[in-house]
């Protein structure tokens, strides 16, 4: 475990010392600040936009940090040749994969927690706290979402360049996240073998939309029932385990 955390610890230092996180943080503060100023001027319905836009920004910015950190881990190590001293250490390759995953997760969770805390402080600044448990669920789902995105990008990083990995991850995020219900309709309107194949493909793809509580938070709906939270958590853990196992198998066979 110590070796895994040693690898992960280095990545947290990278987050602290690079500008990416601070740029996104300032950008978020400025936008939420401007939007909240509209609330101060009593523009009707603006608080809903603050929630909608704020939550979307939290998820998008955390996603950017998560993907860019996870996607570069293996390719950059290979390109800069820092992988060699690492491979020469008494580490199994699965520990390297796990260390990189834990590092990406740690970096994403730290960023997400900061972004989410800012979002909550803007959200609650006007005294509107409709549902604390819904905000709690938003936090849990955010962490689960980052778990998925980190595992997904780590999996791709063992055989893809960073640029290809980031592009593909964004495509999945945009297409599956945005058009999930339409895709589902198309798939299930087909018949026979094609329907079965489409169905398998549909369930194999990562469903980032499961973690999106934007509409629920924006409109301050009721929190989700516990079984949904448990199901999504189980889905995340199983999916991440599968992705990381596949990444390990590919990484083990990789010739350096």
């Amino acid at each position, binding site marked *: 475990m110590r070796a895994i955390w040693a690898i992960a610890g280095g990545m947290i230092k990278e987050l602290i010392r690079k500008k990416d996180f601070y740029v996104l943080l300032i950008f978020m503060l400025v936008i939420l600040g401007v939007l909240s100023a509209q609330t101060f001027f009593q523009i009707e319905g603006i608080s809903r936009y603050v929630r909608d836009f704020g939550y979307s920004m939290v998820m998008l910015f955390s996603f950017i940090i998560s993907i860019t950190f996870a996607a570069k881990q293996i390719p950059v190590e290979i390109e800069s040749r820092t992988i*060699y001293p690492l491979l*020469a250490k008494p580490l199994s390759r699965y520990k390297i994969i796990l260390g990189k995953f834990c590092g990406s997760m740690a970096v994403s969770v730290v960023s997400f927690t900061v972004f989410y805390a800012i979002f909550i402080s803007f959200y609650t600044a006007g005294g509107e706290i409709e549902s604390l448990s819904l905000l709690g669920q938003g936090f849990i789902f955010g962490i689960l979402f980052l778990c998925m995105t980190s595992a997904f990008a780590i999996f791709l990083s063992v055989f893809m360049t960073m640029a290809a990995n980031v592009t593909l991850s964004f495509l999945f995020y945009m297409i599956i996240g945005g058009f999930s219900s339409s895709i589902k309709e198309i798939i299930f309107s087909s018949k026979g073998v094609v329907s079965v194949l489409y169905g398998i493909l549909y369930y194999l793809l990562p469903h980032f939309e499961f973690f999106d509580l934007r509409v629920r938070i924006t409109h301050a709906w009721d929190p989700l029932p516990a079984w949904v939270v448990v199901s999504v958590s189980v889905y995340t853990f199983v999916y991440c385990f599968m992705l990381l196992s596949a990444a390990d198998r590919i990484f083990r066979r990789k010739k350096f």
Partner: protein
Amino acid sequence: MQKILSAKNLQYTYESGKSRTEALKGVDLSVEDGEIFGFIGPNGAGKTTAIKLLLGILTPEKGELTLFGQSPREPKTRQKVGYMPEIANYYKYLTPVELLKIYGNIFGINKDLLRERVGKLLELVGLENEANRLMRTFSKGMMQKVSFAQALINDPDLLILDEPMGGLDPFSRMKMREVIQDLKLKGKTIFFSSHELSEVELVSDRIGILCKGHLLATGTVNDLLGDKKAGQSLENYFLNIIGEKI
């Protein structure tokens, strides 16, 4: 003496699409406990491939390879091995202290011992005043020193050095030679590859000459030069033997 490293009929081929490059074509090699073994050869001879096999980074296609009697593919075998790569490139957003601590933690070194060892190693390589400076500001020579320090973090029984003198100024080279000799006195085994024949001649107990994947000769400098006419330098011997192969 006990054999630390043993390779028999070691073969490795790189494949890329339809092209095949035989990097090692049946190398037999052994290194004994406490000796300094210099591994020399022209560019593309297969030295780095051999080192990658020794470190378990690659798996031999054919042949047997053991370190301390075990397969280098086993992580626990590498617990006693230190490695300095040819290109010293490390995480530029870290300081040397942080890098050494990360590597020390990977080896599972006790926290207090690690703190003490990191300080001593940075002093040994002359980086004690740069200990907390980010490595992105380091010169090539300074990175080489960090690389040497990280190779020693686990107090290894076998030290594998790939072109260790590259990028170092004459004073630092002399210092590194002294450190290598000190390590030998402490009973450590050192395997190092280099293009710099004078360096190899100065520090090695035995030498192996590799060319086009074949180990052409092994022995002490005196053994190798003794076969030839008196007064011949290692450089001349090397050029002759390589010339015959090429």
